[in-house]
């Protein structure tokens, strides 16, 4: 496969997304640090700033802004490398960037001025300033622009290369964006139809349960939107870095299709303890949730098979000899590798969360926060860092020097240690009943609460180590963007084995896969949503004062 080269203008576009990513990392990380300090009970925020304001900043900036900007920028570059980007598409891509950025700034200003301390889940009937909701809507609309550019890029390539299968990474980007568009329709409907008119006072009340159901219809696929780009790197980029080939092109595609189908019709597993949803439908969505185990197992197999095959080709024949010979000193490998390992306990925790009954033990405890710091902040974000180490110098025409590589290894290990300390203590505190999304409190006092506070101290230690890792990462990013010596850094995309079997045509039958996905969604949601509407209570008027407005 021939890889395309980027024009200067294209590189500038991709870099724009990276600047927003790393600015967000710094701002959001600082908030995270302050949160852990406050929760240790030994620190109060200055200037009368409220804990929940910074928690909203943290959740929105890291959970929604940083991830989305990185992913869309990275995916544009993947498309640019494999199927190309025309000038027209590049101009449209700038639109997606500016629309998303405008939305981000609108929402952030409202959050920072205390007008929108509703956390990133913005549950009704807490009412934020309408501009906050408009901002969110723009971020989504901007991301749709990006999605349609990606679809068009692949479409044009297919037209020019009749009969050929699409490049694997372009295929994966397309799946991720199809999932994203279908999923974000839910939150778009919720924001445009329910929240905006209600926050402006055009409608008196809101259906709380419906708004939550629409949120989680989107909220679960959102985490897959973070995870799939990490999978792209594991399937198709890491093999190149370790000097190997793609294990199986068809299996990689199949696992992405399964992820598409089983990522959306499962939002109820976030609503297991909610009144007003029939338990049988909850159970059905729990079963659908667990189907994702299959592509996850396939991914795990492929990755380790690639590692082993590569090692053996290099002549290491003992059972685990190949393992020692992996390029541990190459941060482009080490960072995503730690991410993969973190996904093992992360996934196990997810099985507990999604279980029909076990959920009651941990629902809304800080266990959940520990879980997604392990999966999102460790698995996905660390893989994103691993990508940054080669992507940024490739775009800026610089080199990842041995010194920066070493610093990157220190960065990855610091992040790992910090996250392990923080997330482990969050998991344990959650099992003991400690609630999530909570300012420091001694509650009713007593022995039970004392145990929680000691784990919050541990979280502050983990948080401090993490913040050091963030400073290091931002420093490395600035070096790679502006100061590292000029040179050429490879954009590593692995090839298939020479004797690989042909990929079945069926896998590129987009209409079929989208139709199955939509059918599953209709199956999982139609009746319960109809019931929610039929049995709906009197709606809720907006509440401003609980968020200090």
């Amino acid at each position, binding site marked *: 496969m021939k890889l395309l080269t980027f024009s200067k203008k294209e590189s500038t576009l991709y870099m724009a997304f990276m600047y927003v990513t790393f600015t967000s990392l710094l701002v959001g990380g600082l908030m995270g640090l302050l949160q852990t300090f406050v929760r240790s009970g030994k620190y109060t925020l200055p200037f009368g700033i409220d804990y*929940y304001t910074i928690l909203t900043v943290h959740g929105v900036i890291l959970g929604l802004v940083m991830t989305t900007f990185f992913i869309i920028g990275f995916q544009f570059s993947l498309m640019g490398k494999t199927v190309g980007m025309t000038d027209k598409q590049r101009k449209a891509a700038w639109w997606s960037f500016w629309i998303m950025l405008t939305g981000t700034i609108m929402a952030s200003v409202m959050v920072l001025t205390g007008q929108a*301390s509703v956390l990133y*889940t913005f*549950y*009704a*009937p*807490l009412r934020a300033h309408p501009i906050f909701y408009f901002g969110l809507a723009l971020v989504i609309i901007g991301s749709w622009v990006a999605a349609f550019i990606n679809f068009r890029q692949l479409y044009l390539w297919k037209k020019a290369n009749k009969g050929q299968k699409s490049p694997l990474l372009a295929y994966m980007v397309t799946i991720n964006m199809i999932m994203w568009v279908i999923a974000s329709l839910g939150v778009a409907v919720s924001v445009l139809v329910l929240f905006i008119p209600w926050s402006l006072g055009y409608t008196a009340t809101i259906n*709380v*349960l419906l708004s*939550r159901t629409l949120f989680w219809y989107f909220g679960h696929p959102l985490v897959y939107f973070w995870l799939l780009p990490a999978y792209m790197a594991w399937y198709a980029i890491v093999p190149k870095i370790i000097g190997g080939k793609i294990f199986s092109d*068809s*299996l990689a595609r*199949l696992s992405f299709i399964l992820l598409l189908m089983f990522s959306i019709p499962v939002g109820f597993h976030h609503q*297991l*303890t*909610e*009144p*007003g*949803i029939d*338990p049988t439908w*909850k*159970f059905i969505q*729990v079963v659908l949730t*667990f189907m994702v*185990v*299959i592509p996850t197992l*396939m991914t795990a*197999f492929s990755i380790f*098979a690639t590692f082993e095959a590569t090692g053996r080709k290099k002549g290491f024949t003992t059972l685990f000899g190949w393992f020692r010979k992996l390029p541990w000193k190459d941060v482009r490998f080490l960072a995503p590798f730690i991410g993969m390992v973190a996904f093992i306990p992360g996934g196990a925790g997810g*099985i507990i969360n999604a279980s*029909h*009954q076990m*959920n*009651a033990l941990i*629902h*809304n*405890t800080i266990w959940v926060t520990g879980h997604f710091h392990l999966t999102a902040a460790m698995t996905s974000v660390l893989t994103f860092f691993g990508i940054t180490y080669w992507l940024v110098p490739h775009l800026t025409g610089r080199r990842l020097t041995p010194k920066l590589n070493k610093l990157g290894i220190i960065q990855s290990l610091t992040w790992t240690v910090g996250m392990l300390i923080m997330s482990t203590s969050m998991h344990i505190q959650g099992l*003991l*009943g400690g*609630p999530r*999304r*909570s300012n*420091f*409190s001694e509650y*009713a006092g*007593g022995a*039970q609460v004392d145990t929680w506070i000691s784990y919050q101290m541990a979280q502050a230690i983990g948080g401090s180590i993490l913040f050091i890792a963030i400073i290091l990462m931002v420093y490395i990013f600035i070096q790679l963007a502006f100061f590292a010596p000029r040179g050429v850094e490879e954009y590593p995309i692995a090839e298939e084995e020479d004797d690989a079997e042909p*990929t*079945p045509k069926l896998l590129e039958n987009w209409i079929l896969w989208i139709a199955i996905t939509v059918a599953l969604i209709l199956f999982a949601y139609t009746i319960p949503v109809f*019931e929610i509407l039929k*049995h*709906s*209570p*009197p*709606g*809720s008027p907006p*509440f401003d*004062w*609980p968020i*200090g407005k």
Partner: protein
Amino acid sequence: MNLHKYEKIWLIFGIGSLALFLVIIGFAAFWKGTHPQSHIETIDPQNVEAHEAFKPENLGLNEEAEGKYTVNIVASAFNYDLGKDENGDRVDTLRIPKGSTVLFQVTTTDVVHGFQIAGTNVNMMVEPGHISRYETVMKNNGEFTIVCNEYCGIGHHLMFGKVEVYE
């Protein structure tokens, strides 16, 4: 499409475990009836007193029969109303004898709250317009903290109560 032989074994083993796991939770849910709370019963959040359970005099702990209790609670930002004692003072601790069966019924008059008795399986979302219910046997004695575990505003962390289970 060809699956590698080891991959087949791996997937058969994985999917088999998955099926077994689903059968276990399905058995627990439908034969043992351990569903999470899901009582599809609505209420007007502006007028919860219209419901028998949430009239001011019925709030808090009510003994229904020997060893059987109902606890009715109205949540609001940032307070759980656990009723009043004989002197007319607000109750902040529910005292329940060990081994009793207790049905918790909670609703809210304003925003979404959580209701968790830390250290037990009593953990539910409390949403305006709905009644949340969970029945359990208090098997262990000791002091348990009730916490609001869903963000309900800037006083969220000040919303709590206590359950004391005594011998």
